[in-house]
């Protein structure tokens, strides 16, 4: 088979100047991650210790009210809890007792800190320790903060996974750990590709069940499947594990580069690598090509949201023929995103953080063909005549690896196709 490796740009964005502004951030807080984490970890419960606002956020971010009793809830702080902190610990323990009594299927309980619990300095680490002692070994209680004063949207997942790392058992085995919560179908595809290359000692953080074996040690190497896992990256390194840097596995190119980095790490021969990847690569290219017909030559503008912006801009510019005007991201982890930045040709404005009103002015002036933004901005921008893609879908939808590359491109082409398809004016 003929190889089609695209050449990297002569100058990437690794050293491009970064625009940093400080103003209103139009972003979710880290609690939002619970929406997908609780689906992924099927025996875990996420108990937010916070206010009515936290409960309302979770309910609203879920878009619709997911019925069935959800595996997340909010212990709402009341006046009495704010008055004396000793009370709050006792109250929390009582609520946890009640919850575990009603939900005997729960094996992992996350106490999730919020803005109010952080401000009043409620010690959830101590609460988690005490509760673990009481409920071990049946239930493990961990804690992390998903508060808006410390975490932005996907950083909640990072904080959650990082909180699990110190509790992982130690291993001396040479193992690969995939880090990041992916839909099961996507996770299975990744494992399958790796297994075909002979890499079969693979664990995933977070595991689907509390009992699934995940261990870490000096011979563990890990690959990130999401770009926002800086804290987990650091926590794993503290346990002696080593990161395999690579572009993120979005699109055909990203997936191939990500797999190639692991193939090199595990000494997989080129011929075998090609034998495993050639067919899915070709499929992915074909699938992306269809959506790319709509996307090619179009411009795109990213508001900061999920931290997926840099790898997605790389995918859209290199595989779909789009032109990136501005790529905003809440945080820029150069250690993780370096390989993606190298592949993203210089040109777009890279922006970290946000002043939403100023950014809206830049966006209106740039008149991009497609604007990737949060749910609060999408309809107002559509009403102004801009075509938008809701960023939150990118974390709720299977978009990683070869078989989803076409779907990923389709998420961006659909709004453009829709705008072209609608003819609402009178015929004349």
């Amino acid at each position, binding site marked *: 088979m003929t190889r089609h490796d695209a050449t990297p740009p002569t100058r990437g964005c690794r050293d491009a100047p970064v625009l940093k502004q400080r103003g209103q951030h139009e972003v*979710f807080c880290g609690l939002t991650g619970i929406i997908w984490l609780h689906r992924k970890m099927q025996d875990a419960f996420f108990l937010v210790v916070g206010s009515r606002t936290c409960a*309302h956020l979770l309910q609203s971010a879920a878009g619709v009210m997911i019925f069935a009793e959800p595996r997340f809830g909010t212990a709402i702080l009341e006046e009495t809890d704010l008055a004396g902190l000793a009370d709050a610990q006792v109250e929390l323990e009582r609520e946890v007792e009640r919850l575990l009594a009603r939900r005997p299927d729960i094996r992992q309980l996350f106490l999730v800190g919020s803005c109010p619990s952080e401000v009043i300095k409620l010690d959830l680490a101590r609460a988690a320790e005490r509760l673990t002692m009481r409920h071990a070994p049946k239930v493990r209680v961990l804690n992390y903060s998903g508060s808006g004063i410390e975490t932005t949207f996907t950083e909640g997942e990072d904080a959650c996974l990082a909180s699990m790392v110190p509790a992982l058992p130690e291993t001396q085995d040479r193992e690969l750990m995939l880090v990041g919560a992916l839909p099961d179908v996507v996770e299975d595809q990744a494992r399958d590709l790796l297994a075909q290359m002979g890499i079969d000692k693979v664990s995933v953080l977070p595991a689907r069940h509390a009992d699934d074996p995940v261990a870490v040690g000096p011979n563990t190497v890990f690959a990130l499947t999401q770009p926002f896992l800086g804290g987990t990256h650091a926590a794993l390194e503290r346990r002696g594990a080593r990161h395999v840097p690579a572009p993120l596995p979005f699109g055909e190119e990203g997936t191939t580069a990500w797999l190639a980095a692991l193939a090199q790490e595990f000494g997989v021969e080129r011929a075998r690598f090609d034998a495993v990847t050639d067919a899915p690569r070709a499929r992915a290219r074909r699938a992306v090509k269809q959506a790319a017909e709509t996307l090619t030559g179009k411009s795109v503008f990213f508001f900061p949201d999920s931290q997926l912006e840099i790898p997605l801009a790389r995918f859209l510019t290199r595989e779909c023929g789009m032109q990136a005007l501005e790529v905003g991201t809440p945080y820029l982890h150069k250690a993780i995103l370096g390989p993606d930045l190298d592949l993203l040709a210089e040109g777009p404005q890279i922006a970290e953080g946000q002043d939403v009103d100023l950014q809206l002015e830049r966006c209106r002036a740039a008149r991009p063909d497609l604007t990737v933004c949060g749910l609060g901005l999408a309809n107002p921008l559509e009403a102004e005549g801009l075509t938008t893609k809701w960023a939150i879908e990118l974390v709720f939808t299977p978009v990683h690896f070869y078989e989803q590359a076409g779907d990923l491109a389709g998420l961006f082409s659909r709004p453009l196709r829709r705008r072209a398809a609608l003819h609402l004016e009178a015929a004349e």
Partner: protein
Amino acid sequence: MKLTLWTYEGPPHVGAMRVATAMTGLHYVLHAPQGDTYADLLFTMIERRNHRPPVTYTTFQARDLGSDTANLFKTACQNAYERFKPQAMIVGASCTAELIQDDPGGMAEQMGLPCPVIALELPSYQRKENFGADETFFQITRALAKPVEKTAHVSCNLIGPTALGFRHRDDITELTGMLADMGVAVNVCAPYGATPSDIARLGAAHFNVLMYPETGEAACRWMERELDLPFTKTVPIGVGATRDFMAEVASLTGLTPQIDESRLRLPWYSASVDSTYLTGKRVFLFGDGTHVATAARIARDEMGFEVVGMGCYNREMARPIRKLAKEYGVEALITDDYLEVEAAIEALAPEMILGTQMERMIGKRLNIPCAVISAPVHVQDYPARYSPQMGIEGANVIFDTWVHPLVMGLEEHLLHMFRDDFEFNDAAGASHHGGHHTTSTPETRQPETTEESAPGTVIWLDEAERELKKIPFFVRGKARRNTETFAANQGVHEIGIDTLYEAKAHYAR
């Protein structure tokens, strides 16, 4: 501390946002951490608003705490004024900012901004969304409304509709038309669509129409005292209530009541023979107090249902709902814990729920039809078509909405007749809903619970259980319940076929 899985109401600052977003020319500066901006999507996604809510959030982060959150607030306030040039501003804190005690109101006052700045004190750890809206609108009214000359012609204000309200948009249109028919003009509708300068001339009206006590009562009471504006006490949802409301308007204005009932179809539809099957349907009501109270009257007096339970999630309405429940001979359920509501519904086994989106979900799980009568809202509660709850058209809309989830008249008999037909059986459900009922139903789960429960419990013999299965699914729950109650009252411990039919005869109506 209280564990909450789903909430009926958001925090009070979301109520303030509902007022701010409904108005134009008003801007809200909210001292809040990053993340609280999620509330924008309620308006842009659920209500499909095409503008960002007029809210500036300070979005402070951990590194700002203790250093300059106060300056952050002042900068945000100044920038918001310069960017949006509002006629008036409201300032306040969300739950987290309340804890850091920066006093947004005091700071904003000192800044000497060239427009009125109204400080909001909304206790996030005690109160909720409806209170927030009511209090915010009251504070805006108190700050801006002044005694002015009355309009020459009889006019009123429509008070209470907000952004993110249940059918507020269409209720305004319906009421405006009905009042016009009677010769009453609308002076100002507020907060929905009002500017701060409109608020200043509220006093020009001759009286207020309090559309939604949840969000407008405090302002109406204040205007009654300070601006000499009486307000209407009847909420015109349902035929009877609409007629009472128009009579109330007539007595306030001295005009003759006039209602154009040529479009009114509920009374005849309800009287027509196909509706006989509605007789005595056992319904459970839950929602905000106002919508529940109006729905109770419609259910009993206009649809011929039997109200078997009612309740509301907003504690502010607990007293009137308790009183009303007593009149209906039922126990009022005042709670914002949806698990309690679910338990109550399960215990009462109604044939229909008139509730919120939460009860719709409960109904799905328990296989009980549900029509939605109240907020909290869902994107489905903003239909493209005109569908008010108030007035003449509101009554028509309610008839359709409530009947739709039920199995239709003749279809009920056909289902019975063909109950063993493979295409036309229990699992097929009502033909106009498509899809199949696959969830476990209360009647299949009930045997386990009855066996476990206390002594004195009755046991179903196999033959009776088989006979019960021959009864159409939509009345089977009631038949089971009636039979068990009957058996318990008779001191019978085993239910046979005879018991089943004894009970049927006993409850015949």
